[in-house]
């Protein structure tokens, strides 16, 4: 039997996204030059929510790019994949990019995303925002904005749920 534990409920998840949004404004000194890039699938929904919050606070539309990193993954399944990394292309040259993902783990997804971003342009700077940092990095990568640090063992599974596709918000941890 699998043991499922909620580590972040809906309220806390909203609060984490709210805080990340404020921190982005603080670190970035405004939102004028900002572009959000969400890593498919859940990173896109989280990026949308941050963009939504920025719009309410600053009355500015911050573009959200949906990034498909499949062909840059370094695991077996993705060898030989082709196609566009982004459906909606916005010029990212000289922009401040915030890369958004749900969970930061080994760092390999983020590395792939950085390679994919390289394909669509050369931004001025890239920062990383994640809802959950669970540790166990295999690459020299760290997040600039973190919703929650969740110490975990490698055997555990951490699942971020977003109401857009999972019918509810939250973060759950599963024991093997």
């Amino acid at each position, binding site marked *: 039997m699998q043991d499922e534990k909620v580590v972040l409920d809906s309220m806390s998840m909203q*609060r984490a996204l*709210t*805080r990340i949004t404020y921190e982005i404004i*603080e670190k970035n000194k405004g939102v004028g030059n900002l572009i959000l890039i969400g890593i498919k699938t859940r990173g896109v929904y989280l990026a949308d929510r941050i963009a939504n919050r920025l719009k*309410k606070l600053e009355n500015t539309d911050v573009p959200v790019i949906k990034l498909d990193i499949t062909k840059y993954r370094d695991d077996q399944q993705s060898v030989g994949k082709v196609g566009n990394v982004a459906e909606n292309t916005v010029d990212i040259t000289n922009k401040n990019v915030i890369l958004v993902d749900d969970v930061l783990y080994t760092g390999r997804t983020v590395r792939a995303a950085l390679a994919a971003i390289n394909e669509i342009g050369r931004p001025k700077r890239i920062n990383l925002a994640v809802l959950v*940092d669970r540790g166990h990095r295999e690459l020299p990568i760290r*997040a600039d904005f973190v919703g929650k*640090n969740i110490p975990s063992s490698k055997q555990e599974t951490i699942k971020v749920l977003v109401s857009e596709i999972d019918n509810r918000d939250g973060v759950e941890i599963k024991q093997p």
Partner: protein
Amino acid sequence: MEKRYLILDDGTSFLGEGFGDLSNTTGELIINTDLNGYQEAITDPVYHNQIIMFTQPSIGNIGTNPQNYESIITSAKGIVVNQREDINQSPLKAQNLSEFLRERQIPGIWKIDTRALRQYVQSHHVQKASIVNTNDEHAFDQLTAAVLSNQQIQAVATPKPYLVPGSGMTIVVIDLGLRESIIRQLAKLNCNIIVVPWDTDFKGIISLAPEGVVISSGPGAPEEIDNTVLETIIKLQPCLPLFGIGLGHELIAIANGATVTKMASGVHGNHHPIRQIITNDILYADQSQTYQIERQSIDNNRLIITFVDLINNSIQGLRSRDYPTFSVQFSPEGTSGIDSGLDLFAEFTESILVRRRLNNNEFGI
């Protein structure tokens, strides 16, 4: 029954009956519209030197109990109610309202139509009032001549630092006349809390090595407060996360260039809808507000408005653009039974925790 009068500084008087302490009293008249939480209001240092008039028509229905204090030493000058109840339902060792007031020497007057009085007070800009035995000329002279102290913070804030030990992060609370529920909320999050006197300077705070600083609520006018607090805020902002509440919020606004003015009639209650701008969520919280931040004085390059009162459009929350500083006008503690689900104390400690880990690179590789 003891006949007593509530007299106002415009020369009107209202006949009622005394309860609680039966001495004469004078103070600033404040209208409280809370439906519940009378004990919290009576013990809140924000009401120092004030006579609280409750518009909720029946006060005293659940007695009082030792868990609901906002401060042990009460400093309200009196209370005005319509229907007084001396019920004591609490299973804890408790007192009914009359006993509670008598023991703390707070005069009360009842059988006053407080809802009608509220309309009168608001349309006639009444400031001061007295509860007295006779409504003669002498009593009015005394009322007119009474000068209310502007040293409210000195009267209610702690003169010495003290520790409320916890196993978590160290948080300094600058006491401007704090409500105990601020401490309760921080204690719930296991914070190691150091409460310091209101005039503690930057060096004094930094020497305690806190990870964050709370600037508490308190009584009185922000413009009358010694500049020490403002200087401390200005120096702390770039160094540490700050969280301001009530008076603390007003001072953070002033420290960031905004101006604060006295409202024509204050808001003391929990029935105003407040919008959290970032999420569009509506919440209700306790407000005890006499001063407001001038909207046009806000420098948009320095501050972001985060919460707004939807009835009077007043600014209820601010956040610095440059520093990890945020503040709210209302009470985020959820004291009188209002729980909005909004947990700003958790937001405060979470941001400290995340910053700590990022700075130390504790996580990651």
